[in-house]
């Protein structure tokens, strides 16, 4: 699955985009966030307060209990501030 990071999530994790396999036992967005946070370092900082993080799956805004499959594109970003 393709995972993208924007704004300060990109700065904290140090990457804008990566390709990973959906980790064993992870079934939804919340699980994936927990998995990424457990990488430690910048990832731990990025996901330290998940109330600050918004998620899109296949370019649609979703809630954290949304199920995931390996072909999904998942993006993490702060609340949007355009306009």
């Amino acid at each position: 699955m393709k995972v993208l990071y924007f704004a300060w999530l990109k700065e904290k994790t140090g990457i804008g985009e990566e390709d990973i396999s959906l980790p064993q036992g992870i079934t939804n967005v919340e699980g994936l966030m927990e998995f990424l946070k457990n990488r430690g370092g910048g990832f731990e900082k990025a996901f330290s307060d998940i109330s600050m993080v918004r998620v899109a799956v296949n370019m649609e805004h979703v809630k954290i209990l949304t199920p995931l499959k390996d072909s999904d594109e998942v993006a993490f970003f702060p609340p949007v501030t355009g306009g």
Partner: protein
Amino acid sequence: MIRIQTDDFDVGQELKKISSVDNSIGAVCSFVGLVRDFSGPRDNEGEDDKISSMTLEHYPGMTEKQLAKIEEDARSRWELSDVLIIHRIGRLEPKDQIVLVMTASMHRDAAFDAARFIMDFLKTEAPFWKKEETGSGSKWVEAKSSDAGNSKGWEK
């Protein structure tokens, strides 16, 4: 029509194009958002907090998808002859134009309502992020809770 671009835009030219689409257009509402030189309540900030520039990042693909959905939603609610949404990305300075929403209709109520609706949803749904540069460093702009309230107000 949706356009994401680094270049500036000319509202007069866009208006000329949109109003020549159709002789039934009687009303065009245009909203332009501009870069201000401060972000919070004005008197809380000193010279160091003045914004010298701003950088707009977005999520290519998702931006276009979300804006197309907002346009479609507006067209289903109001009788619109045309809709134009332009959003700039990249580096901008105070007074620069950031966004244009232009709605054309036979009637002014539809044009006003649709433009406001699109702006309210753009503010909460379209994946753009602003980073401001000031004398004391750079910071990501925080979302305003009032924006979330505005888009909730349109829910049927």
